[in-house]
């Protein structure tokens, strides 16, 4: 029986658990920080000495932790890229923008257990010799920003932040910086631009890798809220112990957000890779299955930019067979273990851990139109393929969902989507807006074609041409 494994959310939903410092301290809070700050230097067999912060960085490397924001990049590796010899200050930014549609996990941590985030952040800052850090929180989390500011003030009053944290001689200040409603601020270099007080235009890489040229052109670490909380647990239990959770190369726990047409939408913390996509959707411990009388149509497995899976879709993947040898197996979409690597091999991604379930009542063209409208609205406008492409796709889908479609619209959409990603844009938004269109159109092509064809036939009967998009009345359709 697959079960939740609550490490980060251990206390968050317990009755009587509050976001205040007293409550956190009563539950053993900041003990890990105390231990981290007093870690003695360790002498290795070869005579080299490892400082406390160096040991912490090694633990994170050993833990195999992969970033929980979306890209799933190794956190230890990210930290190892930081230029520590530049003589410039190193900054750390907590990415609390939580902007990928379908994702609502960081909200739980910020609202219910803010001190856990702060403890993880202070440890991460200490490990990386950071003395000034920011929490970049999305503007819509108005209450969240207040909760964090309260928590920061409590921490300052108890000497958990400041010039000499707990008398250790280590100094750190953390400030909350609010975004103002732009999705692109979740992209780390866009976030940095936004924190510098500019439009959130992502930077070109190279040369602007944050680890070398980040905030104020200084080395900068940008880590997701959940990632920083995991750091706290890695420091507490040790990297090797943490790596025993989850599966090889997909270690630890992660919080999965499930939304859409399931009986129990919500957030569930699981060991990575120990639970399948189907279990997350159908098991009573998680999504609880589809609404009665409905069957599954599609699943978006990792936030709205992940490529969609069609119900019944099969993948040929190499997996370890019963004798331990790698064999090629045919696996149904629902039997895919929900981890980083398997979903990438199946052509999609687990992204920010957000599963959106669509049942047979969903008009798939409407669903894609909804997603594409989001991306058209959120493109920052820097790169032509993305700025124009996201808008063209949204307009074509708008036409298709308003009775003005054409049979060839499916081809047209695929053609635009194919010409946005693949190094034609500065950041991955190009991929993010193209992947849903590419996958929806490829996997549900008949529905797109049928819709366009029906529109054409109706117009032929009415003896008129298609209206241009700007003349189509924007009638909102609640079918979706």
């Amino acid at each position, binding site marked *: 029986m697959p079960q939740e494994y609550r490490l980060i959310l251990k206390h968050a939903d317990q009755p009587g658990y509050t976001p205040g410092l007293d409550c956190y301290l009563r539950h053993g809070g900041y003990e890990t920080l105390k231990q981290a700050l007093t870690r003695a230097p360790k002498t290795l067999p070869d005579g080299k000495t490892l400082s406390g912060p160096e040991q912490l960085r090694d633990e994170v490397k050993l833990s195999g932790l992969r970033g929980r924001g979306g890209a799933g990049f190794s956190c230890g590796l990210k930290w190892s890229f930081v230029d520590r010899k530049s003589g410039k200050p190193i900054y750390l930014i907590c990415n609390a923008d939580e902007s990928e549609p379908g994702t609502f996990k960081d909200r739980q941590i910020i609202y219910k257990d803010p001190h856990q985030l702060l403890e993880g952040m202070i440890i991460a800052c200490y490990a990386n010799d950071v003395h000034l850090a920011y929490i970049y929180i999305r503007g819509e989390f108005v209450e969240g920003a207040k909760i964090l500011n309260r928590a920061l003030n409590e921490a300052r009053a108890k000497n958990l932040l400041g010039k000499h944290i707990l008398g250790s001689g280590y100094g750190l200040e953390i400030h909350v910086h609010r975004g103002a409603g732009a999705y692109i601020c979740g992209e780390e270099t866009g976030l940095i631009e936004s924190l510098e*007080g500019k439009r959130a235009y992502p930077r070109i890489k190279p040369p602007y890798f944050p680890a070398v040229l980040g905030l104020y052109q200084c080395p900068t670490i940008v880590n997701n809220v959940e990632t920083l909380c995991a750091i706290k647990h890695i420091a507490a239990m040790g990297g090797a112990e943490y790596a025993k959770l989850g599966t090889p190369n997909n270690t630890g726990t992660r919080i999965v957000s499930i939304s859409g047409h399931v009986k129990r939408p919500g957030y569930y913390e699981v060991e990575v890779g120990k639970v399948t996509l189907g279990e997350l959707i159908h098991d009573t411990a998680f999504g609880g299955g589809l609404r009665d009388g409905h069957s599954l149509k599609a699943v978006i497995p990792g936030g709205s930019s992940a490529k969609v899976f069609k119900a019944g879709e099969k993948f040929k993947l190499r997996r370890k067979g019963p004798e331990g040898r790698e064999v090629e197996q045919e696996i149904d979409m629902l039997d895919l273990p929900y981890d980083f690597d398997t979903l990438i091999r199946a052509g999609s991604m687990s992204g920010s851990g957000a599963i959106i379930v669509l049942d047979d009542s969903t008009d798939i063209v409407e669903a894609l139109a909804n997603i594409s409208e989001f991306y058209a609205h959120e493109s920052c406008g820097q790169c032509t393929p993305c700025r124009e492409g996201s808008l063209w796709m949204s307009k074509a889908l708008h036409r298709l969902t308003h009775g003005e479609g054409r049979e060839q619209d499916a081809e047209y959409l695929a053609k635009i989507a194919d010409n946005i990603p693949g190094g034609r844009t500065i950041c991955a938004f190009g991929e993010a807006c193209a992947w849903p269109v590419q996958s929806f159109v490829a996997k549900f092509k008949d529905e797109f074609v049928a819709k366009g064809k029906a529109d054409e036939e109706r117009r032929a009967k009415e003896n008129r041409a298609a209206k241009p998009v700007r003349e189509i009345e924007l009638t909102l359709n609640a079918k979706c």
Partner: protein
Amino acid sequence: MNAGSTERIPNPLQHQPQFAVPGALEAEVGELITHYPPDKKRSASLMVLHAIQEHFGWISQEAVEWTAQKLGLQPINIYELVTFYPMFRQRPMGKYQIKVCRTLSCALGGSYKLHKHFCEKLGLDPHKHGPQTTKDGKFTVEFVECLASCGTAPVMMVNDEFYEGVSHAKADEVLGNCK
């Protein structure tokens, strides 16, 4: 344009002749600036704009100029933020601003019907996505993108208050509480 013509490109920002920053707001802004390195005042611009909008309800030409001057910037540096970030308002809005989440999970959970319900109830056009304000200036209704609470769809915000699992009955109750 003819030489000597007084025609100008229209200013997209609105004027607020009685713009005056009270001492408390000035102090708050001063404190916000200290959150950033001394030579990086520009970083404070988003936070300063939030503080101004919280006080005045919107960002005027005078507010843009004041902020720029305060941070040692050109007005364009602030203006470009006001036009880029969707949360900043370039004109006064209703006393109660209803922001209904439009994005996929909420749409699957009935947010289009919810938006329509508000519009019909308040005499606004349900076909429009952008902000619309009632004639008495009491309500503004608009669709916004993902509010990051997809598991409790449909969700919305009324000013800074967040509401989840909003049924039409709950929507009516919230409206009723807006005095």
